[in-house]
């Protein structure tokens, strides 16, 4: 049976459209069903590109001078997260499989991190220097309208000066994938929804 070009085109187009809808629905379900964690956010700025306005998110955890960088296994691509309290999570270490990651920390998420080690207090520097862990879990921006993006940027600039921090609300699915649910700024949740 020979199908004419016109129905062929429409069938392929319908399959493409359904695939796109399927991705949106599946991602929405995975986001809703995952475990919610709060991850500290630093160094953000609003951008206006062709793709619209967004807030650039830098998932970064500060390490006190007395702390040290989490251990990592060779060839690792999973991160172990551990609860720090009030729903906030921090990095416990890195491993190359989910099972091994869960032995390091209770929650495993796909991704990597880089750590700049803190400097412990010494005679020449009695207070020491803070270190930082930067997470790379596929979340680096939050799309939002320009006015709110600029407001968030302002709040976060103040947070960098020592005021209360902001958090990314992240859903960690059963597949280990991190999905952004929103931002928590000044205790106020800005969540993604369908509308």
């Amino acid at each position: 049976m020979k199908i004419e070009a016109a129905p062929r085109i429409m069938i392929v187009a319908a399959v493409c459209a359904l695939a796109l809808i399927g991705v949106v629905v599946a991602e929405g379900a995975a986001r809703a069903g995952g475990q919610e964690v709060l991850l500290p956010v630093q160094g953000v700025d609003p951008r206006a590109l062709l793709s619209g306005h967004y807030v650039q998110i830098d998932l970064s955890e500060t390490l006190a001078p007395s702390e040290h960088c989490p251990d990592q296994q060779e060839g690792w691509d999973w991160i172990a997260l551990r609860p720090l309290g009030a729903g906030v999570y921090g990095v416990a270490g890195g491993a190359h499989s989910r099972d091994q990651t869960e032995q390091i920390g209770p929650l495993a998420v796909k991704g990597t991190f880089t750590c700049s080690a803190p400097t412990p207090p010494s005679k020449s520097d009695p207070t020491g220097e803070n270190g930082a862990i930067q997470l790379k879990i596929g979340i680096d921006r939050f799309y939002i309208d320009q006015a709110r993006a600029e407001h968030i940027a302002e709040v976060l600039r103040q947070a960098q000066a020592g005021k209360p921090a902001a958090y990314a609300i992240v859903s960690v699915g059963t597949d280990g994938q991190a999905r952004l649910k929103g931002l928590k700024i000044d205790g106020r949740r800005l969540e993604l929804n369908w509308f």
Partner: protein
Amino acid sequence: MASYKDRVTGDLDRWIGAGLIGADKRAAILATLPDARRLDAATSLAWLGGVLFGIAVITFVSANWDAIPRLPRFALLLATFLGFAGASAWTSQSRALVSNILLTVTALVFAAAIGLTSQIFDIAANPRNACYGAGLAALALAFAGRSTGAAAVGLIMIGLGDFVEHDWFIGGDNDAPWTLFAAPLGAFLALRWGSAPLAHLSALAIIYCFSWFAARTQADAAVFLFLSIGLAAMAAGARWLYTQDRPFAGVFYGWFAWAALAYFALADYLPLFGSGKPEVIPGSAHRLIWLAASGALLALGRFDRHLAVSAIAILSLIGAAFALMTDLGLNLVVAAGVFGLCAAVALIAGLILRGRAKAT
């Protein structure tokens, strides 16, 4: 390059002038030959307009559309995509060119829709998968509507997917590029559907696949020689198709001949970095083979009336001569000897060929 019909027209005029056939047969003979497809100014502008319109749509929907809620935004995307697909389907029977352009725009809109959907719903999409998805959709649309433009979009998107977040050329990735399947498919479609842009794209994609293979093997000189021979064989295959008047086979002939000579020339300079220079062919022999191959290709290009191949051969000859002069420390006496030897070989070969032609 003159089309088959143009060449027959020239021959017919000569035959009529020589009295071999009657002038009254000229129109009847030419009527049996199809006109070569030429891209006139109006068609070129239609293509340009179509593509620019697609880009305008993409830019418009990507611009700051904060005021529109998420679901309507997504619906707008899907409606735009389906609208272009529907328009292409509607014109597929009566206006093939318009349908082709519309399907190309449809493929571009779908590529944009993937990116915008991940933006609308903040889906952390893997750019590589997004490019591959857009490429596969474009190829599927191309097959559905026999669209050379959509096929070109598919090839480009898959090529982009291969480049995005990949470290093949520094040994950081072990998976195979999708171009390995997309490039031969593009070549097949270019020859089957007679599309020059698709032919150029797929020829470049095939050469890219060869480069990927070379990079995987640490860019070894022996591998480059092996790949050069493989490309030369492919150029020979493309030449055979070209002599059979297969439309756009000449594009592959030109690109593969260029790549074969380039790989051969590079082989003697590897490894590019680091110490040591393992010579698979001794330097002087390499240069002589390079010169001879360039000369042979020039003769072949002239014989086939393929301007691009002739030009490639001339550039290659210049490169080989320059390399030889550099090797010999600009010793002009020795260089003159080598060039004299090459000239003698070329003259003798030419005389033999002429003798054979006269004998037949």
